[in-house]
């Protein structure tokens, strides 16, 4: 008589497997999720760090004067009175020492920089894997003896809207810089 497994033995074996396998797989899934979260966070942080450093450096070293219109006729923040300070939604145009115009603005969730001397035009400072919102570049002048102060602020989030709050990655960036070559 050739004896195989009895029904009871099979049920016990299956029961043990059904208890252990989900543990392993759920660990594996949680692992994958937190790895994805890290990749997203890295993307968001790298884009934000890079964009802020680029804008700050360009404004600090290149900008010679600030204007509120594209034709560079209305200069702003040239006096200490608050009336010439642009609002956070308007674009500030900058003129460098050679007379070239350059400026930054938010375009479909990316920070775009436009200048006559760069190519391609506009040049995007963030990639399409992240979304930039609330971008603002404003200026103020605190005293007649110091150059205008430019405030740069924006927030970078991941693409799409994840279901849980824990998965959402949004980082805020803000800094101020003075025009080094104010004319």
């Amino acid at each position, binding site marked *: *008589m*050739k*004896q*195989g*497994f009895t029904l009871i*033995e099979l049920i016990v074996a299956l029961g043990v497997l059904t208890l*252990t396998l989900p*543990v*392993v797989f759920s*660990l*594996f899934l*949680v*692992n994958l999720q*937190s*790895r994805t*979260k*890290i990749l997203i*966070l*890295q993307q968001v*942080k790298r884009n934000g*760090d890079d964009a*802020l450093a680029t804008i700050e450096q360009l404004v600090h070293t290149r900008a010679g004067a600030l204007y509120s219109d594209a034709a560079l006729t209305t200069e702003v923040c040239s006096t200490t009175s608050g009336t010439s300070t642009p609002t956070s939604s308007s674009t500030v145009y900058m003129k460098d020492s050679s007379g070239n115009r350059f400026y930054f603005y938010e375009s479909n969730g990316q920070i775009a920089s436009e200048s006559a001397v760069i190519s391609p035009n506009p040049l995007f400072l963030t990639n399409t894997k992240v979304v930039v919102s609330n971008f603002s570049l404003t200026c103020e002048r*605190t005293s007649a*003896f*110091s150059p205008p*102060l430019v*405030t740069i602020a924006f927030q970078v989030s991941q693409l799409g809207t994840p279901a849980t*709050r*824990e*998965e*959402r*990655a*949004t*980082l*805020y*960036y*803000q*800094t*101020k*810089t*003075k025009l080094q070559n104010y004319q």
Partner: protein
Amino acid sequence: MKKRRAGFSLIEVLIFSVLFSMVFLGVTSAMISSLRNTKQSQRRIMASYYAGELKDWLKGQKELSFSNFPKSGTQCFNTSPIAAWGITGNCGSSFTLGQGSDIVFKRYVTFTNGTSTQVNVNITVEWNEGNVVTTLPLNTRFTSWE
């Protein structure tokens, strides 16, 4: 006479279950430690962001007015994004900085060697990793060129 064949002997079953449980434990512990590592690096990324955020904000305040910029003392900045100067002290034991379910950080800055044109800025982000306090320092020196 027909020989009766049993399924498995006790030894065979024992060897199988020992091997199986060793493999199972190995896989599980590897996954748990990898999970811990990913959590650690996630916190490290956030800590370096918090340190950089405070540095950018302080730099902005320095540009705004260096004469009003603190030249000594310690301030705690446990809110993000930063909107105002922090409270005096190194946050003590309040690890209330963070995002989502990961509110485990504290952040403070110490100003030293302040003169009328320069000040040393030492930013520290601290958090508990298991029972170990992990620290991420960011030290810089602000200069006023006016």
